[in-house]
């Protein structure tokens, strides 16, 4: 465990150096990332323009949800994992995965860490400020316990989302043709912007596979605004740990089918 922490700290240092060597890329990334953050809020504004509450969430609570989506998914998840998942496609298709598999390192860790999109920090910081502003305008009061539980459940939410992505991206080993496979989890992520009941309102059995995503942001947000039940908490933790276990097993199984690339 200690070794992995050491390696991860080294990753952070190396990514910071890389970012400072390529300021142009950094600025473009920052711009795009913040623009999507603003879009998050605009989308809720547009959708809820003619209503006061949806699926039991008030309009103000929906705006908070848009902000926490930015903190957890648009900010933290993208910062920690987005580039790694993008690279995973070519890594597997073009044989670069060999380099990861040859190292005495858990290959799931090796494939999904390493790149950090540091510019996403801006989205996290701005969203935190935004959430505090919205909550004070809406008169939603929170204490230190709310913030701590938001962080704890946010952590489990990130694990659930990570495992969800990893399982889908592992399919690239089976279908190397699907170079746009990341579009599936990218679009499914949008589910996390809205109250979890929306998944049932979509009325399509086939989308139930996205169930974990519906909990990723909504549960930590419920913790933040004092709407969390014991069931919500237990469900998210169970889903997160269960999916993580499945992702690890499926990955190991998929590696037997890995054909590398010819020389």
């Amino acid at each position, binding site marked *: 465990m200690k070794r992995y922490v050491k390696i991860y700290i080294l990753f952070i240092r190396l990514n910071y150096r890389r970012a400072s060597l390529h300021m*142009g*890329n950094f*600025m*473009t*990334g920052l*711009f*795009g990332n913040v*623009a*999507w953050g603003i*879009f998050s809020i*605009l*989308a809720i*504004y*547009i*959708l*809820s*323009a*003619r*209503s*006061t*509450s*949806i*699926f039991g969430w008030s309009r103000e609570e929906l705006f908070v949800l848009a902000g926490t989506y930015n903190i957890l998914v648009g900010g933290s998840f993208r910062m920690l994992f987005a580039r790694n998942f993008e690279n995973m496609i070519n890594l597997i298709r073009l044989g670069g995965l060999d380099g990861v598999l040859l190292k005495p390192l858990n290959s799931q860790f090796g494939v999904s860490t390493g790149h950090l999109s540091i510019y996403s920090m801006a989205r996290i910081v701005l969203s935190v400020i935004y959430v505090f502003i919205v909550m004070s305008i809406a008169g939603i009061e929170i204490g230190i316990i709310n913030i701590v539980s938001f962080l704890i459940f946010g952590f489990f939410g990130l694990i659930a989302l990570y495992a969800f992505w990893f399982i889908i991206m592992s399919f690239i080993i089976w*279908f190397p*043709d*699907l*170079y*746009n*496979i990341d*579009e*599936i989890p*990218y*679009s*499914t992520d*949008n*589910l996390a912007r*809205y109250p979890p009941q*929306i*998944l049932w*309102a*979509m*009325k*399509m059995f086939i*989308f139930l596979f*996205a169930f974990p995503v519906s909990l990723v942001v909504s549960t930590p947000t419920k913790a933040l605004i004092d709407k969390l039940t014991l069931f919500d908490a237990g469900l998210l933790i169970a889903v997160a740990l269960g999916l993580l276990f499945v992702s690890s097993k499926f990955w190991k199984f998929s590696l037997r089918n890995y054909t590398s690339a010819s020389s």
Partner: protein
Amino acid sequence: MFSQTRINNLMRLLRIFLLHFQYLLSHPSRSFVFIYTYTFLSLLYLAFIRGVFLQNGGDLGGWTLSSVSSYYFLIIVAPALLMTHPEHPVLRDDIENGELSGRLLKPFSYYWQRFFHELPYRLFQGLIATIIFIVLSVLFNNYIEFRLSVLQVMLIVIMLPLAYMLSFTFKMILAITGLWTTDIRGARELVEILIIIFAGFIVPVNLLPGILENLAYFLPFAYMIYFPVVAVQGQLSVNALMSVISVQILWLSILYLLFRKVWKKGLMRFTDLGH
């Protein structure tokens, strides 16, 4: 007009079309992935809007639950058929990988080469999306009533290819800015966001809040997606259809002229760099 050279060139372009269609058929799953994203997002927004409708008693800004459901089903077909993406191959293959030099040597314009490259994808994905539209209509027991006059149908038949050309020309301008700087990621993401909002993907344009609705009629995006959709739904009178077509032609002229200017400048820069 029908000189032998022109006919030969047309045959060559058709052959490019068939070749790309063939390539597309050997990797059909990629198209299914794109259709999934349109379907998922459309149904997600529909689910939210239905919630709004149920709160407001089933009527909103001229839309009923039935017509708005059809709208969102059609919003799956519209981008599959009409929203072009030439910027991917232009930026990745032609500019970054240097294939542009080879393309410039061919006896027909770059614009039309890319056009015939893109077309098979739109047709194939449009077909799949139409099948999904039919399946959803049956599953949700929500059918469109096609009450269109012959004149309306004729005008829609003109409107659709205009919408396609508008989308294609706009995206080509975006793509060739890559000749100046390869990292146009920021600009592309901004354009994507503008299209999602103003082409009517989140909500129909007439349900956009105040200033956004006005802006939508001013920008070209609604004329690529939103208007073709509501036209097919029979919501546009003959006069309205003709207005929309006029605006499409106006935008297309502006964008095409802009494309030619940007392309000329871009080409000079490209050749200056010794490619």
